């Protein structure tokens, strides 16, 4: 579960307007905590040789699986992070920092079997390990990397925002 803060979005907006340098520094600092998780998550993706052969990209592929075939490079590219505030989601929450698994194949690898179990002909052949707490926060790539990180990234992000706030406060006092 993400840590809930108050006033952080406003702080970052203010920073971007009043102190763009500090805003950039904050983004960089947040990124430095997210990068290791992303790198680790990319490492959990299987290579094309290790993925089930029937799932790989084929020249004559058609239908619904045409754009869901697995390509290790594409899946790796799909795992990214964002260190700036997002748009509010349906419940009204704004994420201050996020890690994504954007590609279709990456999402399949991430989540396959987390609801129905590792059964059937496809899921057991994926390998990897479903790690996480609760169904929504369980996966083989980003969720596993996040779990392995043991909250270091989360603490780092919060500290970075807090640090920016302190700096901003001190600048404000000087003015």
């Amino acid at each position, binding site marked *: 579960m993400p840590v809930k803060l108050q006033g952080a979005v406003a702080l970052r907006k203010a920073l971007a307007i009043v102190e763009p340098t500090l805003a950039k520094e904050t983004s960089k600092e947040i990124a430095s905590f997210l990068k290791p998780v992303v790198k680790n998550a990319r490492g959990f993706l299987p290579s094309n040789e290790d993925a089930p052969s029937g799932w790989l990209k084929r020249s004559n592929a058609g239908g619904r699986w045409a754009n869901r075939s697995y390509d290790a490079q594409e899946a790796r590219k799909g795992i990214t992070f964002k260190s700036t505030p997002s748009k*509010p989601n349906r419940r*009204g929450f704004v994420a201050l920092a996020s890690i994504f698994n954007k590609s279709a194949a990456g999402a399949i690898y991430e989540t396959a079997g987390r609801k129905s179990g590792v059964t059937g002909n496809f899921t057991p052949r994926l390998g990897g390990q479903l790690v996480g707490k609760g169904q929504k926060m369980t996966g083989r790539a*980003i969720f596993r990397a996040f779990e392995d990180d043991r909250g270091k*990234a989360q603490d780092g992000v919060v500290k970075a925002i*807090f640090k920016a706030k302190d700096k901003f*406060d001190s600048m404000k006092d000087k003015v």
Partner: protein
Amino acid sequence: MADLRIDLASEFKGKKAFKEADGAVSGLDRAVGKLGKQFVGLFAAQKLYSFGKASVKAFAQDEASARRLASAVDNLGLSFSQTRVEDFIQNLEKSAGITDDVLRPAMQSLLTTTGSLTKSQELLNNAIQISRASGIDLATVSQDLANGYVGITRGLKKYNTGLTQAELKSKSFADILGIMLSKSAGAAQDYLSTTAYQMDVLTVATDNAKEVIGKGLVEAFAKIAGGSDATDAAKAIDNIAQAISKVVVFTGTAIGLVEKFRKAYTNFLAGGDVNAMLAPNKASSNRSSSPAGTYRRTQQQNAAEKAALKRQQDLQKSLLKTTKALTDEQKKQAALKKAQSIFDLDQIQIIAALKGNISAEDRTRLEAQAAILNGNADLATKLTKDILMAQDSTGKLYQYFLSIPTAKNPFAYLDDWIADFQKKLNSLTMNTSYTQATLAPELAAIGVVAGYGDYAGSVANQSPNTLYPSYGMQTGGGDTVINVQVQGSVIREQELIDKVMAGTQLSSLSGSPSQIGRIAGMFG
């Protein structure tokens, strides 16, 4: 598709908040000012429980490793040196920036092996130096050194000493350690100036703080729960953690309330000021204040070191004794072999002949034979030369003897003969086709029927054989019927088989020489 993202920190802005974002800047001062307190409240509430748990765990691990080391020290008869060992570990922890959790097992392995406190301290310092230089963790290095101390030097290969496996085996541990220390000289000092060392010091300080807090928490929470051990403490921590989480969820201003709640709750249950209870008790140093205590400790330490030294000396003595016994046994075997040579018949004859009144030349010949029998090649060559030179003083005979080639195989010609014979056999050709001969008219006139192997006609024309009776066997027509008559009555085939088998068995048990020979395998 599921929205695959992890939000590390978020803020609730309400559904229409994004439209009001511009207006929010005006309220920034208040929001930013409150941020610290709110963050501390919420963040601390989430982290308090996990930090408390981690601290208690760190304390428990530290306590367990200290107990293990204390037991090892006790078992070595160094119980009075407990404080010195603990002091040494603590000082080393501060100076080297290595946590006591790592140092204690390393010290324990060295102490158990060497049995000497001073030697273990020296080796632990050496291990740290080698570990810094090689990058191999301290536990592995200390274990390797402990093994090396008792002669198992195989593990020292990985430190790139430049010694071969054979040299590692043959050299003493002190020599090898000297080489390793010379190669890693200065590494420990250099490490002290690195950032990694500063980080290590910070880690040590953090861990120690965690252990101290953990100890305090265990004691305090145990008292809160009305008990005295860690189980009671765990129960209390869980209860308080649940209470804290409820407070956080329902009030949102966690930290102030939690603090108040915790203080009130704990003070009420503990029946006093918890802060006073949390203050760590001064641990007993176990150090005697009297000079007599110091004397006893020193005496015990000396005794233990003497015992360790004696053990090592005994081991060396035992090894020496075994080697000596082996050498003696080899000598005895050699003497026995020499004595056995006296009973060699060839030698007996030569020695007997040498005792007789013989010419100088014959004596030389006999001595040469004796030298050949005993395998003394130098003497045999010399005596052979003497004999040949005596027969021909010009030395030509001796030169001829030297030029004689090695004796050839006398049956070598047989190989050529067999090969030639085989070749001739292979060249032979046989006509495999068969041409039937025509029947001569004179044979046909006397009733001989044509055809290869057609015997039926000739048998039919023969007169009855009265000269050689059949003795029960009757022939007639094309079929031959053999009737076997068995003494007594045989009704069925199985009975016949049984009878034959019984007869065979009786025959084999009869004891006749031929049967015995067959059973003993004399014919095969």
